[in-house]
């Protein structure tokens, strides 16, 4: 198996040896990020590090809040959406990152 040791950028691009390599391949692509506390993001990945801190551009965030009616115990899901042009996301809140939707 090819390794990236001592190899140029060309080889670095091609090899996926560890999970973070997959994140590297998402650079400049639109990704989906699931966050703690029922938050979801989509946006273009511009930067990341080994903690999964990230910078995303043109971000759409969806926050889902579950509320329960005190009388009927009925569940209500409230969705709040917003867009943020450029966002730094702290890695400790990240649950999963999904590459651009496959065709």
């Amino acid at each position: 198996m090819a390794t990236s040791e001592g190899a140029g950028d060309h080889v670095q691009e091609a090899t996926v040896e560890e999970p973070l390599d997959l994140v590297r391949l998402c650079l400049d692509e639109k990704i989906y990020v699931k966050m703690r506390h029922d938050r979801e993001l989509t946006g273009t990945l511009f930067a990341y590090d080994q903690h999964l801190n990230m910078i995303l551009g043109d971000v759409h965030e969806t926050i889902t809040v579950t509320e329960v009616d005190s009388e009927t115990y009925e569940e209500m899901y409230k969705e709040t959406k917003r867009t943020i042009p450029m966002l730094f996301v702290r890695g400790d809140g990240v649950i999963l990152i999904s590459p651009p939707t496959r065709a």
Partner: protein
Amino acid sequence: MLFYSFFKSLVGKEIVVELKNDMSLHGTLDSVDQYLNMKLLDIAVTDAEKFPHMLAVKNIFIRGSVIRYVHLPAEEVDVQQLQDASRRDAEQAKHSTKTGAAAAAAAGKGQPTKDTRPDQSDKVAAS
């Protein structure tokens, strides 16, 4: 150190820091450190009614670990430079993993005690 360098390049710019308790603070970035603790000047709290104790402070120090998001001024961010820096950083992280387990141990933790990689990421800068 990529994001540390990045935030250093944003010193003096206005940002919005969103904390994990849903408080949003708008202010001028004064300083940042390796843990991404930040100092903001002349802050304004959105939804100040919910946080009355913030009404009497102007300049603040925020612990990095309580930050959820930072809203950045898009025009100050050079995305090409960020991508290059991310690739460079990823490469470096790999090499240090092969030479020692420290980087692997630090990965995934919010605040590593030590950065073992050679620091070449200071070239990251916003335009």
